[in-house]
Each structure stands twice: as structure tokens, then as C-alpha cells.
């Protein structure tokens, strides 16, 4: 019998701890598919953060090192500079990359560190129980913005991808989502390109992924998928934000 669907080799045979409807498990899977397809499992080092994906090393069958909150880009810099043959990716949430780790992220991008960042934007701090994130929508109620996020008091949803696209050292920035089969396919393509850029030595690549968090959004999984389309992607438009690889792309 012909096998048409199977677990990626670089995804461990483990049960995800993520909530039903969460985007992390989808993103883990497609990232592992990319690692398999590029044949880089034996030289990939992943850098997961504190947050819901802190246990990513139970799922990814590649070498991994836990980073302090927000410091993923600096840790990845240290690994890549010490061992340039490695393929290094950070896996960071919005609190990690867009709040506490803004400095490390921006400067790693500006130095053109030859690494890949997978940036999960779900508009809340998930693991700590749904507090306001830097990417929380205006008017959105969270446990620390119980009256709805007010731009005058709590600032505005920060667009890290657009900011990171501004610096010379980033070569590729794209925003995708994992709320439909079509979007998941696009997300995988973007992740693959971001890893390929590193293999080709092009510099800093980032894929921002709008990812549903039904638990903290207090929605059903189906409604959360719709909300990504109806609300989140209006504030954070999907698409390629920067691509300097142009026709020089390997594929």
C-alpha cells in the first residue's frame, strides 16, 4: 500500500501539550516538514523561548537550546558565529520577540545574522494566562487590559515585521497565517524560503505567523480561525513585506 501521509522525520512521536485549535502544533509540523525537505535535520539547532512553546524540544527532533525570555536572537547569534555550518532558527512568540526581546531581535536583523526567525503572533501572552501582548488589538480585552486595549494608555499593536524590514541586514520578511489549508500551505512556503535563505547565506529572515489562540481569545477553534481573517489580518496584513533575494533565489 502506498503511504500518502506520515509524520515528518524531524517531528518526534509525542503528543502535543497545546490546547485544541492552537496554531503551534500546525507550525511545528510544517517547520519539521521543511527541515525534512531541505535535508538539514542533522545540522539544525532550534532556539525555543519561554512561553507556550517552551517544550518545543519535546517535539522537534533536532538539537535545541532553551533561551532566556526574549534573548533568542542573541543566543542564535552565539551559536551561528561559533559554528557557522549549523542551521539556526529561533521560535519566538509576540511577547518574546516584540516586547522583551525587541532589542536583541532588531540588532540581530541589523547585523544580518544568517539565522531564521519563526515569529508566532497570537496577540496575547498565552502561557501566563492571556495578558496583553504588544500585538494585542485595540479594544481587545485581556486579563491586563480588562477594559479593552486603549492606544492612549497601552500603546498600539506593534508591527515588528514592518520594523524589521527597514533594517539593511534583513533579507526576507513575510507575514502569513495558519487559519486555513490555503494559508497553511503559504506559511510552509514562507518558512521554507526563510530556511533556504540561511542555507544560501543571505542573512536574517523572519516569518511572522498569525496564529489562533482560542483559549485566551475565549472563542471556539472555528471562530478563532475566522477572527484571524476578520480582525487580526486587517491590523497585520498578510504578504511579503521585504524580499531582497529576488531572482537570485535558489528556487
Amino acid at each position, binding site marked *: 500500500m502506498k503511504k500518502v501521509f506520515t509524520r515528518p522525520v524531524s517531528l518526534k512521536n509525542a503528543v502535543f501539550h497545546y490546547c485544541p485549535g492552537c496554531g503551534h502544533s500546525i507550525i511545528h509540523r510544517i517547520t519539521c516538514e521543511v527541515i525534512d525537505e531541505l535535508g538539514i535535520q542533522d545540522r539544525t539547532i532550534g532556539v525555543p523561548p519561554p512561553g507556550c512553546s517552551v517544550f518545543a524540544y519535546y517535539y522537534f527532533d533536532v538539537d*535545541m537550546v*532553551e533561551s532566556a525570555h526574549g534573548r533568542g536572537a542573541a543566543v542564535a547569534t552565539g551559536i551561528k558565529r*561559533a559554528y557557522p555550518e549549523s542551521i539556526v532558527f529561533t521560535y519566538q512568540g509576540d511577547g518574546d520577540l516584540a516586547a522583551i526581546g525587541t532589542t536583541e531581535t532588531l540588532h540581530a536583523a541589523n547585523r544580518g545574522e544568517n539565522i531564521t526567525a519563526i515569529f508566532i503572533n497570537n496577540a496575547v501572552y498565552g502561557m501566563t494566562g492571556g495578558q496583553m501582548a504588544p500585538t494585542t488589538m485595540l479594544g481587545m480585552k485581556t486579563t491586563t487590559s480588562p477594559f479593552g486595549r486603549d492606544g492612549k494608555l497601552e500603546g498600539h499593536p506593534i508591527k515588528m515585521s514592518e520594523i524589521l524590514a527597514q533594517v539593511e541586514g534583513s533579507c526576507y520578511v513575510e507575514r502569513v497565517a495558519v487559519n486555513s489549508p490555503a494559508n497553511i500551505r503559504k506559511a510552509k512556503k514562507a518558512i521554507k524560503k526563510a530556511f533556504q535563505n540561511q542555507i544560501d547565506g543571505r542573512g536574517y529572515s523572519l516569518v511572522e505567523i498569525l496564529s489562533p489562540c482560542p483559549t485566551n481569545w475565549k472563542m471556539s477553534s472555528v471562530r478563532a480561525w475566522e477572527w484571524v481573517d476578520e480582525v487580526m489580518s486587517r491590523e497585520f496584513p498578510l504578504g511579503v513585506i521585504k524580499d531582497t533575494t529576488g531572482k537570485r533565489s535558489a528556487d
Partner: protein
Amino acid sequence: MPKMLMTGNAAVGEAAIRAGCQSYYGYPITPQNELTEYMAANLGRRPGCAFVQAESEIAAINMVYGASVAGVRTMTSSSSPGISLKQEGISYLAACQLPAVIVNMSRGGPGLGSISAAQSDYFQSTRGGGHGDYRTIVLGPGSVQELADLTHHAFELTDKYLIPVIILGDGMLGQMMEPVEFSHEAPEVPPVRQDALRGAKGRPSRFVRTFTSNPPDLEEVNWSLFRRYQLLQKNEVMWENYMTEDARLIVTAFGIAARIAKGAIKQARANGLKIGMFRPITLWPFPGEQLKALSKKTKFFLDFEMNMGQMIEDVKLSLEGAGDVSFHGRPGGVIPTPSEVLRVITRIYYQKGLS
């Protein structure tokens, strides 16, 4: 090999390169900039080596963490306010049992403080420094030559015990120039640790982490660290006894303060006073038994530090009540002269009736 005239900062850099340090990450702060500059000029372009001027001390220590995970010898340096920022990373290094060398050319505090030499970071260095139940190995050099020698030793210790090493210098040691001799040549092929994360090639994938949702697992990590700390206390303490044989009053001092005290003690001896000195070289583990042994010869001690009295707590703990400990200190980056220390020594010597 001929002696070279170097600043303490440059000597640390040269000794680190000769110890096989392959990556350095730093951020400018006085009085240690010569070290960062030395590494920029002499390490950054060496084949297989890395130098990054990081965007902050926090980033620098996390780059060190990454380099250590990848198995190479790595170092960062800073001075007091910057070392405070590095504490997060040092706690993670300690938790993950990753080797690294961290140099603190300390200056006056608290706050931004002064840029002058001080020893106010003794507590921070010897009590772990960051959050959690851990220690680092702390070395307290007293000359440029010793800075160079202890830098080499630091890389050996950190690799052997998988515990971060702090070299606690100060602004004066870092800035002053002295002749220095290096006992090692840089290795042609720098060492790479066996347990490095370099991809799961020919072996199962591995991970390095600190977080656990199961407290008993973390307790076991803590006990495993503790057992290594006991080994360090047993095997790795370093100290110097100076003219203690017939001493009636023993000065306890470390680092540059010991250097100043030595000048005072020489003069006191010339004046006929029987003074000696006990100088811990490993500040943690503290050579407590070796200090206690001296209390069989005399009961009188004078602790001298360039702070308001920090090492004195270890001195008293070690003596376990077997000594009468006086104190003289100058905090804030004020550097006392040997004649000032001589006056204090002389006063205490006669007040205690030791003549």
C-alpha cells in the same frame, strides 16, 4: 618567551586567546574597554573565531550562552553596572551547566557609581549574583601577571566543572601596565566540547534547557550542582600566606587591596611590627580552612577591603569565633594609599597590645 608590557585588560585578552578562547562578546563600559578593543583587534579576524560588539550586556552574555552551547571556549567582560545586567545570563549558564568566563573590572557603586577601582561586587560575585540557588567560581587576581595566569586557569576550571567562572578584577588592575609573561601558546585547533549542540549527526537529537514542570527534577539539578561545589571546595581553593609565620596581626585582603596592604606590611615590618597577610585567590570557593589554620598562630585579624565590608563576612564565618577581626574599608572607588593602611595597622597593633 620575553616579558611584555601590557595593561591588565589587554593581558586578559591575550591570555584568553592563548587559552583557546574562540569567541568574545562585549559592550563598551569603562574601565574595561581595552579588553573589548584587544579582542576586536586580535580575536575577531582569526580563522574560526568570533567577535561581536553586542547591543547590550544582556545580549553579550546570551551570545556567550549560544557559543558555549555550540561547544567553544567563550568569554565576555564588563564592569559593575554591566555585570548586573549579565546576571540573568549567568544564572542560565549555571543552570544549564555551561562553561563560560566572565570578567568584571569592577568600579564604584551602587548605581552608575564611579569609574574608579572598587571591590563592591564581592557579594554579587561570590553569592551567585542572579536568581536561584547557585554559585560561580570567583577568582581574585592581584597583579597583571596573575590576571593573565588566572585567565588561563579560568578556562580550564570552567571546562572541568561546567560552572561559569568570574574573574573579579577592578578598574586599577585593568588599567595599569606591568610586565607580563604568557606560559601558553594558542592551540592550533581550539578545543570543542564533546557535549556541544552541533546538530544530531550520527547521534540522537539533544536539548539544553533549564525549565522543568517537575520540582523534584529541578531539585536533583540543584543537588548535582551542590555536589560539584563541594568538590570545588575540596580541590580548587587558592590562597597566599604572606609573612604569616611569626605574625601577631594578620591582614586579610584580596585583589588590588592586598597589593596596597603588602606595601603597608613591608613598611610595618621595617618598623619592627610583626604583621602578615592572608590573601584568598579563589574568592569562591573561599579558602576558609586555610584561614582558620592561621588562628592557631594569632587571634588578631584586620580585614581590609575597598568597600564597606563584604569579604569580612567570609573571614568571620571561616574563623568561627576564633579570631578578633577589625575592619578598614574605603567604598565608592576611593583608593587608599599604603601609608593610610600602615596607620591603621599600627594603631590596631598597639591598641590590641601586640607589641
